């Protein structure tokens, strides 16, 4: 067992466990979060994406040790009903989902994109979300929502 320390949604967090365990397993298990979802376990679908050092990574195949001393943000840290992130507001305004299981990962990919590129084009948004899968076919609404959130953030 090893103690791994990182900041989770702004809070210093220590976990004493096998550092080879996946970040998703620790987030959902020991740390009790439900935002990052399990979808495939091999980094292919993106429902488990979280932001580590401004990049949206798949947490199901990231070992815990890889986030030592880093800042990890999950959808729980993105915003809340009381204080929503513009992306969350835009997803509601555009009704940009059907089942919503993929949404936490997609929001994190979109949030990472907007950190790096505040004024993305539609093609850039699609490229940034290309490694997130959505099975219900809500892609176009999600792209519209991301572009609308980007406009809102640029205007404020």
């Amino acid at each position, binding site marked *: 067992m090893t103690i791994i320390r990182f900041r989770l949604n702004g809070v210093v967090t220590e976990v004493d466990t096998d550092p080879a365990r996946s970040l998703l397993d620790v987030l959902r298990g020991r740390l009790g979060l*439900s935002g990052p979802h399990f*979808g*495939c376990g091999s980094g292919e679908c993106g429902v488990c994406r979280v932001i580590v050092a401004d990049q949206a990574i798949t947490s199901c195949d990231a070992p815990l040790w890889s986030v030592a001393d880093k800042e990890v943000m999950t959808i729980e840290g993105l915003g809340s009903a009381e204080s929503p992130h513009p992306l969350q507001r835009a997803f509601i305004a555009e*009704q940009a989902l059907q089942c919503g299981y993929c949404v936490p990962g997609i929001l994190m990919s979109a949030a990472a994109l907007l950190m790096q590129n505040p004024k993305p084009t539609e093609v850039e948004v699609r490229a940034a979300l290309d*490694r*997130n*899968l*959505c099975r219900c*076919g809500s892609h176009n609404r999600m792209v519209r929502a991301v572009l609308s959130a980007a406009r809102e953030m640029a205007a404020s």
Partner: protein
Amino acid sequence: MSASGNLPISLAANPKLASWVKFAPAGQVAISPGKVEIGQGIITALAQIAADELDVDIARIQMVRASTAGSPNEGVTSGSLSIQQSGRTIRQVCAEVRQIFLAAAADRLGVQASALEISDGTISGPGNVATSYWELASEVSLDREATPGISSKPAAQRTLADCPVQRLDIPDKVFARRRFIHDVTLPGMLHGRVLRPDKSGAKLAALDESAARALPGLIAIVQDGSFAGVVCETEHAAEVALAALRRGATWTADDALPDENDLPAFLKAQPVESTIIATKTAVDVGRVVRTIRRQYCRPYIAHASIAPSCAVAQWIDGRVHVWTHSQGVYLLRADLALVLKLPVEAITVEHMEGAGCYGHNAADDVALDAVLLARMADGRPVRVQWSRADELTHGPFGAAMAIEIEADLDAQGEIVNWHHAIWSNGHAARPGRAPQPALLAATELANPYPRMISSNPPQVNGGGADRNSIPLYDFPQWTIESHRLLTMPIRTSALRTLGAQGNVFAIESFLDDVASERGEDPVAFRLRHLSDERAKEVIKAAARRANWRPERRAGIGHGAGFARYKNAGAYCAAIAEVEGDEDVRVRKLWIAIDVGEAINPDGVANQIEGGAIQATSWVLKERVRFDSERITSNSWTDYPILRFSEVPKVEVEVIQRPEIDPVGAGEAAHGPVTAAIANAVFDCLGVRVRKLPMTRDNLIAAMDLTG
């Protein structure tokens, strides 16, 4: 005719008003449908209907999740029937409840009911007298049967229904509140995993448990015949224990799978049950001068839900409680009772939302898994989740189909006789409808049930393999036949549209072929053969949106497709624009949809967009892969679906018809979009691809055939 003759089907089956509506003391209204949310937005549409009919703010409506503990039994949430069955029922129930409360308010306030009005649940009349649903609730019993023939509000008076109301479940999902079954935690909850073979139908010959037994956090190893699984304190421990158990397992291979590259040969060589679905004859159709015959094929298609199936079960004193994302809580309960040899009263099945559901996936299977594992958990709840690989290989698939159409043409090149034949496994093997269970683990137990061979619902319920096989066009003669396989090496059951996607693909491709040979515009050709005005209207609307027929450009093609889902549901027409060379890319889809009254027009548009994109994914990419002994498409790499950069633009026109009873939208787009893409590929490349999916290999094969 019985008094219930005029009641909507769900209400006739569950006539007590109180089973649908209750007024909660805190100014809320609990609406309790038997249908469930599967990502389609149904609970919002039902809440709109209820709020509108009762004249209450939609924020007061609490939608109760279906449970065998008290919900009306509405069978299964499938077939685009929820608006039709649940929606009509809730509208009628709420209309009657409103009348009952108006009468009670009239009594209490001493005024005529006709002088009263209701605003957000407050019932008021002349001279500032007022009461409310909640004040009256303790005096008014809804424990009475619905009255047939109650009229609901006229369309013009609806203020919520027929409007684009925001979905009630979306905020929870955007803010990651615990709404999915996957995110449920119960006190003392354990985690289970089930061991499944790589090879199809393999039996567990031996199981060395010693390595798994030695692991920390292990609560139980469960084995019954070829069914084996672990129960552990944590999910991580369960994964580790499952891996150890897998290393200790010896399997005997069993089923031989067909040749994935020649599905028609396999399908046509099996023993079948043949049914004539429909015939139409004419006295004199003139001389046949030419006969055209074409064969179409669609592969097995996976549900490929974005989440692996999941369930939680807890045994207390010989009774079991199950939390599930099944489409039918009562039907699942019936199958669990068969397997467990328990009366249904000992089993409670409660719905919780899962990821998008497109038909009979592994939701019911994992529920039995959880029940079997939880039996060894000493009263603690056990959560079981499938792996991605199991989800893509062990759940039921949409059935492969071979379809042959033969048409006789007269001297003018008009179709005078039409023959449509289908070879396919059945498209339904749902739980709860047969004397034997349809659940996977039931086939694995030491005393196993046989795998249920899929059957087809009858045409009056929309048919199965034969869904949408009867032409909507006015050909003078036809014969439609369906050959249902009596063997089932690959497990099939209901996937969105059942056989309709394959049949519409075949019919609409064939028509396009004939129109093209005649040198006739394919849209005009269709309109000329239709007499139903709503059918013509959707085709014209889609064509208008697409500026039909767009100017020809190199490398770009356009095609049309049309169907009325189940020949009795929603009308849908699609125009596709594709770009093609070695691969096909779909650039844009223009779609017109007519569901009658669109309760939530944005919800309808969302379903149609989603259906169109999913259909595009099926057409361009999807096929379940297998070799002679195992399903090999067990990851997203081996079972690719459409990605953000590949998704077409989708423009939807909802034709609103408030005066016409509503039907569902969830499955209307798949057939027309499939056909429109196929026809656009022909327009673009001059090649008829009759074998799905339209991958590079199948394009090249089709070109070779053309050349």
